[in-house]
């Protein structure tokens, strides 16, 4: 029989790893699924495509953007898997320019410096929230949001003293010796208030249309995804190989780029759901998600 086609929006960054593992290891094919990869850069493009049913799956959708989209159009992005970032599974972090490493040992030492931030109000407000938690007020520092493509440049050129950045930029910076990591997993530590807490900042989402109209295909797709997650957990080193080929990760940092805590939503513990809810509420608090949302309504376990 013909394979079931599934249209997948893919933002080729390291967070999409399970998708590429599943694809390359044939986990989808084995379930008679033929995914069509549609490269879509960033949240707005993915959300627009989800809303108009031009894709059925978004391989990486930033949680706050997904929640927001669900406020605008309920059920447009149902998370079937989430990627957690913590001090261990490094993603978001503060860095400081090499020349200042002696002076700046902790986030609080960033006082009086010129900072950059990953772009978008979610990132900017997260950075500001973290800085506030360590006692830095507006005016103790300056912060400008900057396109991720420019972060390494800006550090190299000394345009900024440090800032809030994401992977793989931070690893590249360390590798090049232009900047040093101060602290990663700041959402867990400062926003959720627990270094052990999972910050589910992004995940893989289906449209409810997809779930409703082709429940069987959706289920099989989710299973393929779960198998990939399991594989990554078991063989992180081998899994990294797929980063170099499919995502915008430089070859020379492939072996160092941190992994994320890939989790299927069906496997999420009540505690984890609580952290997700807490993160969602933070989004509402900073105004990125326009209203309070019950996260149970946007996750779908298969």
């Amino acid at each position, binding site marked *: 029989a013909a394979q079931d086609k599934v249209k997948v929006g893919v933002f080729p960054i390291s967070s999409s790893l399970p998708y590429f593992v599943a694809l390359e290891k044939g986990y989808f094919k084995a379930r008679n699924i033929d995914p069509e990869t549609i490269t879509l850069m960033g949240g*707005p493009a993915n959300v627009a495509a989800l809303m108009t049913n031009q894709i059925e799956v978004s391989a990486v959708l930033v949680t706050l953007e997904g929640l927001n989209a669900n406020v*605008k*159009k309920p059920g447009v992005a149902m998370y079937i898997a989430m990627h957690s970032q913590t001090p261990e599974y490094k993603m978001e972090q503060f860095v400081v320019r090499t020349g200042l490493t002696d002076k700046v040992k902790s986030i609080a030492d960033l006082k009086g410096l010129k900072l950059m931030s990953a*772009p978008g109000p979610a990132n900017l407000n997260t950075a500001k929230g973290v800085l506030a938690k360590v006692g830095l007020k507006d005016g103790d520092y300056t912060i*400008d*949001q*900057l*396109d991720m493509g*420019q972060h390494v440049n800006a550090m190299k050129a000394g345009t900024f003293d440090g800032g809030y950045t994401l992977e793989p930029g931070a690893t590249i910076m360390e590798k090049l010796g232009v900047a040093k990591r101060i602290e990663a997993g700041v959402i867990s530590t400062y926003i959720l208030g627990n270094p052990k807490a999972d910050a589910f900042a992004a995940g893989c989402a289906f449209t409810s249309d997809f779930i409703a109209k082709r429940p069987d295909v959706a289920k099989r797709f989710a299973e393929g995804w779960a198998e990939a997650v399991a594989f990554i957990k078991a063989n992180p080193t081998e899994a990294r190989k797929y980063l170099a080929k499919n995502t915008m990760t430089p070859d020379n940092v492939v072996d160092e780029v941190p992994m994320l805590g890939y989790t299927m939503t069906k496997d999420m513990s009540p505690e984890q759901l609580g952290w997700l809810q807490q993160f969602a509420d933070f989004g509402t608090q900073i105004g*990125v998600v326009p209203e309070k949302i019950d996260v149970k309504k946007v996750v779908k376990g298969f």
Partner: protein
Amino acid sequence: MIRRLDAFLPLVGVVGLLAIWSLVTSRGWVDPVLLPSPAETFKAFWKGMDGGALGFDFVKTVYRTTMATAIAAVIAIPLGIMLGSSERLYRSLEFVIDFFRSTPASAMFPLFLVLFGVGDETKISVAAFGAILVILFNVAYGVMNARKTRLLAAKVMGASRLRVLFDVMLWESLPQTFVGLRNGVSLALVIIVVAEMFIGSQDGLGHSVFEAQQLFDMPRMYAAIAAAGALGYGLNLLFLTIERRFVHWSGK
């Protein structure tokens, strides 16, 4: 009577645009979440302009665009006349002009970021750079297509190369210069907005568009886009008015 109505002609376009927009949204041809109705957009526009952030962003963008265009005009017009007056000089530099005209100014951000930092300077200089190329190109074209007899007339009266340049070529190229200026100001605006979107900005219409986009606040996003478009039209209208006053002889 008809003449007096002519002043309202631009409204035809506005109304037409709004009508199509209304139709598209009211019929649900496009998801209203992705394309809000004109009414909703106008509400967001009004809210933003009336003491809201949009008014402030608007002013910021006006300032940057004006600066960029002014710088571009001051550099590009004399240069364009010079280049246009010497076919061989122009041919030598054509590669550079066409080259940079065809690369996205946003690709130049990293370089300008390094050179000028993240302040207004970077945005204004990238935009000026883009506008210079367009104005230069148009002015040079205008000069190259100047009516030969007029150049000869000045020459035979003993005008030096420089005088011919400024007394004849400058004037002959004016209609085309205004085409360049209008293209240039629009491009400068576009680049400013894009720069505000992508390089660290806390204000400006681009910032507004970007933030609204990230927040899926589509009415606000389209309000900001509309503000940018209206600004562009306004600046174009300004140049058009100046042109009408000064270039009275076109086609004669």
